[in-house]
């Protein structure tokens, strides 16, 4: 079952997902060459979550993601050039090389940042929602986290905090079925994580996170509800990552055949198949992909040509 689509929206979604996919592939290439160093957490396979969810929000809304956040940043409209420059330690990086792959932000785009502590972004998103409440602004705050974070105390404190104050917070659980390297089902009694919302008196639902239109529709509903003052919701989006937890993760813990099967259901393949079936020509879709690749290639060229962040500025930004 896949949600019905509108061709223009679907083309835009496909383009957005391809841009994320090619960004991640470019990062993989640069990491392999050691031009980018350190751990990178890629989101290949989970693109529909970002594009669908952000597609249901406005430019005034605020997004708080995990360290697997490149896709969220792109969905918020952060230019790929600024992201790549950040990972490359350039002066033109969105955080002048201070954030890196796992901790950058770009608040001008409503992207309030990645977080490298599992679950820690949820209470922070509550604060952004509190700001909106106090200032009478119709903004919502979206906090994304993985299935593993559902076992972190901060998430539970945040869900109760948002619920008791009826704050406009959207708790998005990207359930890719692995808490880092351990299957989530091995560390919980009940793997239907969305049910936990009931304990906090808020709606919780599980949806197909690889169906971009379904993600958008669901998030639009809950964002509207939150904006109207009816409080938070927990949306569990089922997806799969097609790569390791981090670059270099051999994924020996994944059962044989799991990845092959996942590749049949991943969001880009899904949307392409659906669009072809509804009459869009294959070469139109190929052009969309080619444009995305070109966009990322030129962004990478610009980022690579930018100056490195200057060492004499390393102690800047510690205090006001």
């Amino acid at each position, binding site marked *: 079952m896949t949600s019905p689509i509108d061709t223009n929206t679907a083309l835009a979604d496909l383009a957005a997902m391809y841009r994320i996919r090619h960004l991640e592939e470019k990062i993989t290439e640069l990491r392999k060459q050691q031009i980018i160093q350190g751990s990178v957490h890629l989101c290949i396979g989970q693109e529909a979550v970002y594009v669908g969810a952000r597609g249901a929000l406005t430019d005034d809304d605020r997004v708080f993601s995990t360290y697997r956040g490149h896709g969220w940043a792109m969905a918020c409209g952060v230019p790929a050039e600024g992201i790549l420059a950040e990972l490359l330690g350039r002066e033109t990086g969105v955080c002048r090389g201070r954030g890196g792959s796992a*901790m950058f932000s770009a608040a001008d785009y409503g992207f*309030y940042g990645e977080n490298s502590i599992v679950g820690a972004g949820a209470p922070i998103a509550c604060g*952004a929602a509190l700001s909106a409440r106090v200032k009478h602004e119709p903004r919502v705050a979206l906090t994304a986290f993985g299935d593993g974070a559902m076992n972190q105390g901060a998430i539970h404190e945040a869900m109760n*905090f948002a619920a008791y104050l009826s704050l406009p917070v959207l708790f998005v659980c990207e359930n890719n079925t692995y808490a880092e390297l351990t299957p989530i089902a091995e560390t919980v009694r009940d793997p239907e994580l969305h049910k936990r919302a009931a304990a906090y008196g808020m709606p919780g639902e599980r949806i197909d996170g690889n169906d971009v239109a379904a993600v958008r529709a669901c998030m639009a509903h809950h964002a509207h509800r939150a904006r109207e003052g009816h409080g938070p919701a927990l949306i569990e989006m089922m997806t799969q990552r097609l790569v390791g937890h981090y670059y270099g993760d051999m994924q020996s813990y994944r059962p044989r055949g799991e990845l092959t099967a996942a590749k049949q259901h991943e969001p880009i393949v899904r949307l392409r198949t659906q669009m072809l079936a509804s009459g869009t020509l294959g070469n139109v879709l190929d052009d969309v992909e080619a444009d995305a690749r070109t966009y990322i290639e030129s962004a990478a060229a610009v980022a690579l040509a930018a100056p490195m962040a200057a060492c004499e500025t390393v102690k800047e930004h510690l205090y006001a």
Partner: protein
Amino acid sequence: MRNEASSPPTVQLSFGKSINAALSRALVEFPETILYGEDLAKPGGVFGVTKNLQAEAGALRVFDTPISETAMLGAAVGAAMTGLRPIVEIMWIDFSLVAMDQIVNQAANVRYVSAGRLSAPLTIRTQQGATPGSCAQHSQNLEAIYAHVPGLRVGIPATAQDAYSMLLAAVQCDDPTLVIENRALYHTEAQDVVIDGPIESAEGAHVVRKGRDLTIVTWGAMLHQAMAAAEILKTEGTEAEVINARWIAPFDWPTLFSSVQRTRSLLVVHEANVSGGFGAEIGMRVQAELFGMLSAPVERLGVDDCRMPAAPHLQAALLPNAERIAERARKLARVM
């Protein structure tokens, strides 16, 4: 409009009431402030420090929270990143440990990691120290832990005036700031407090007693013990200079160095454990900076590395007091 020509009024306030007055003023002068914590709004706080503030500023801005320090402090980070100036009460500093992630990993990183594109102007009000019968999880002095973290400011008021002025300085400051009070001081005798004066910046020590023979630097409740010790020493012909450090991050090194240059000897006193206490940092810096001028090695006095027992007489066996400070000062004088 305040009349700039007239000096601000002085009123008699206890330490606790000074805090209340500062919060009341902050809620008026900074419309972006919000104030929350456990039992803070309707009950007015377990020490009565926040009484009437919800009535003054309204329930949208002053409210009670669940017992969820991580949610409280995380929400403060998010609210501060998005234009508010939250003031959060953590009832006991020991409780901050369950939410240390939000202070150390989150708040302290906001400005630096975003290259100054975001900031976290939040104030954490908390209190620490041993009082008779307080258990080991309600008596720790943890200032050195937070002073160790770049990006944070840490202030420890010792007087009613400090309680007022330093809290307002913290609220006005655009950095995440901890103001660590001492509950033993909340209900002490009212003192003259200048209110409604200009808000100072969140830094700076005060020389509170002049003396030529040695410098005693301390903060928080220990200031009062140090002042009493200075009186004892005076009767013996030793004139101690006493510095109320007030802010330990950033620490006011110039004020301390200039005092030690004159007295040529230093005793650091804190209620925290000695090993890894902020006194270690002070001793090291002073010895590195003023080695040739010192007439004796820097001395420090704190709790001799122990858990804090609940029984009052056992606590008293560990805690620095005026007599012990004086004794350590005499030891320093003998070496000189």
